[in-house]
């Protein structure tokens, strides 16, 4: 509990601090595309194999850091025959905030926090009892659950090019009854733009 309070306090501190560093808000707009593979081993990843994830995200400079939003798609297939046809697709939609540090010329490290929803779509929804007997009760083929994600992204920008390459690690936890925890290593590219005025007006 103390840990959660400290995290919350830190979060509020950063939020308060953000108010005093407003220069540059909405000036740069970045689009990220990457692919990720699962590296963490646990009961969930032992029983479901994931395809490489596809991720599309956006970032915009906002006060002390970057505000971000995006979508990640992952396909999961049953690895344990005990679970039958429990294949499903996952769509993680999030918003987040990150704080980039410059490590070296052109090289930045950005830790961040994302909150979102993990939409799950089952290929073959379960029916109880399995034999389709009296009063068959089909489960909903769609599920959605709250998820949070801690990220650390290393990004390199060669010279003044708007193109960048990045690699990162993300720890994602979906808060189902038995939480789904995955660790992802990603590789991808980014392209930044000066934020067009219409978009800046919208974001403000």
């Amino acid at each position, binding site marked *: *509990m*103390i840990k*959660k*309070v400290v995290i*919350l306090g830190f*979060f*509020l501190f950063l*939020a*308060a*601090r*953000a*108010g*005093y560093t*407003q220069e540059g*808000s909405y000036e740069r707009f970045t689009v990220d595309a990457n692919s990720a593979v699962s590296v963490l081993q646990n009961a969930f990843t032992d029983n*479901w194999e994931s395809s490489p994830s596809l991720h599309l995200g956006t970032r915009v400079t906002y*006060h002390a850091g970057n*505000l971000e939003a995006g979508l990640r798609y992952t396909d*999961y297939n049953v690895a344990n025959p*005990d*679970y*039958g046809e*429990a294949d*499903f697709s996952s769509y993680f939609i999030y*918003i987040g905030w990150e704080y980039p540090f410059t490590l070296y010329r052109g090289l930045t490290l950005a830790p961040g926090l994302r*909150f979102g*929803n993990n939409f*799950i779509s*089952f290929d073959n929804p*379960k029916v*109880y*009892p399995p034999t389709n007997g009296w*009063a*068959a*009760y089909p*489960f*909903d083929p769609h*599920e*959605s*659950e*709250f998820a949070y994600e801690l990220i650390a992204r290393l990004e390199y920008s060669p010279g003044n090019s708007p193109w960048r390459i990045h690699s990162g690690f993300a720890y994602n936890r*979906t*808060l*189902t*009854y*038995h939480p*789904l925890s995955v660790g992802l290593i990603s590789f991808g590219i980014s392209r930044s733009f000066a934020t067009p005025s219409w978009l800046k*007006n*919208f*974001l*403000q």
Partner: protein
Amino acid sequence: MIRLLLSILVFLCCLPWQSTAQYSAEKRDSLNTSILINPNDLLHTIPEWDAVTTDGFTYRVNTGLYGFYGPQPTIYLDDIPIDFSFFNWQNLNMLPSSIEQISRISYSSEPRVYNQTLSRAGYLNLHTPRPDSGLSVYGSFTVGNQIEDPGPWSYDSSKVTPNIDRRGPHYFSGFAYRSSGWYARGQFSLRQHQPTNLNNHHRIGNYSYVDNVWHAVKTTVTNGLAEIGYQSDRWNIRARGLSSNNEEYVFFQPFGREVPSLTGYRQLAVQAARESGPWKVSGRYLAHRKFMDYRLNNKGYDFDWQQLSHHFSLSSRYRQHNMRFRSGASLEISDTRGLQMESQQVVATLFGSLHARLHARHTLDADLNVDIAARETAASFSLSSRHQLTDGWTVEGDIDYDELLYYRQQSSTYWYRHGYTLYSQLGIGIDTPISSQRNRAGSIQLTNRIRLAPSTSFHFKGQALHHYALNIPWQVVALHEQQFQGLYTQPQDLEFTSEEGNRFNLRLGLSQQLNSRLSHQFNVMMQYTLSGTNRYRSYWQQTPQNRMTYEFNIQPASDLSFSLLTAYRSSSQWKEYQNLDGKRYRSLQPQYPLQYGTFRTRTPSFLKVDITAKKWFWNQRLATTFSVRNLLNTEVRYHTLGLDKALQFVIKASLTL
């Protein structure tokens, strides 16, 4: 944890920031709605009030005088009352207003005539902003979920769990047009809720297997409103039509369980006021139509109850330099039908109040109202004096005496005595005699408001309350086991007796406006039963003795804000359910494998933390809110048969054009 929060609070209070915060027991000038999902959530923003829920969507309110089974507070939307209380079951989600559009609330716990209507258990007035000039359009969307859904593990027979509650989606849309003197507006809302938590789903889900199909266990509320108004220097005229349909599960206390029902409400209101010099004259006509109809269920339960009532009222106000006087009268004519019952009631109310400023620092208020029905009358009066002792210290003393007609108590036993046969349909026995007494109570209270610093206000109120007679419905349900279906509650004989006792309420409030972007407030409410009959003591054990809230708001940038709301509630005891204590209930049979829970008559104490982030876009036209409720994921339960609210997340978006 509590020590830590108190330390932070004391530290912040010691900081010498500027600006002034005013706190008032009766009014709150602005409302932070970002953390609220639906209108029922407003009930938790009032420190003196407590609310319990069995489904997380509808609530019973205790405003301090009558407890959870007494009459509910009267709800006003922009000063016009709405009466959608059904046997003391009231669902604020039937309001056709977006929570984001409620800019201010005012409330009182005192049973007074307010805006020409007797508010028998206090009132809550929701104020929406006046429409902007020209055409304006508004829309909002809210959706939420509670964690611990089964996810892919539902395929593992050892790990399956029932799905957990979904909140929403709620949709709201509205338009308004305002010219120089007049305006028109229309509003529509759709609210949905899926009470799938095991604690209550095993009871209400059991009703849904009809014609070999499991129907969705879902509450759906659709509301609409149309209003026109004209305002000039002297005239204020408004006409409003309102409609609400609510497909829900009414928790019917005499039954000890939910009953599927379609509740509905229609309103037609015309109101006019004219001001001339020191005089103001107001008149109003209100028509309410309430009904409770059949909702699909496999038991054939049907309230089949409807009421049409007409309310006429006229009042005048006279104001001079140091004095204000109000008086008026209202007449209520209602026609009620249910099953084989047909009943007519006529109640007239006379009311008057006086506000006198005896000195620049001393004021006196007196209030009197008399309710006159066919066979009995009920009178209420209050006397209060307010004294500003220093520039920053105000003391107020109040003496109250209140009577409440049996008809006004809104008890289902009243209709039973008039021939309503619902009890026999539901298998509820009656332990006679049934009390038909008026409720009678007297109280003395002392309020202190102290400005500790330019930015800090302290509020302290003590109230001693004596119930000369308080009618309490009491249903000690039995355990009912049905093969293949599980364990449920079964009603036994309902008792409705007049009880006597003493209560003491204490409230502390501390608020600080650190600057225009930072504010916080702390409230403590303590309520104790000092003496009384056994039933009286048992009844008030449903109410927690101690409640605390701490709210912190920060707006680091003009387009971004954060809120933190912490609430503590001590445990409560529901003795009506003592026969169930320790027994195991289980999920519906088709949700294999069966899941189990345990009935507990004691709801646990809990500490709940909610955080909210709000970001505006497009020059404040678009607002998005992200909330995490019950961040610590503690067991948040208000009613012994109620759901266990775990961590939830809520997303809201609203657009104003």
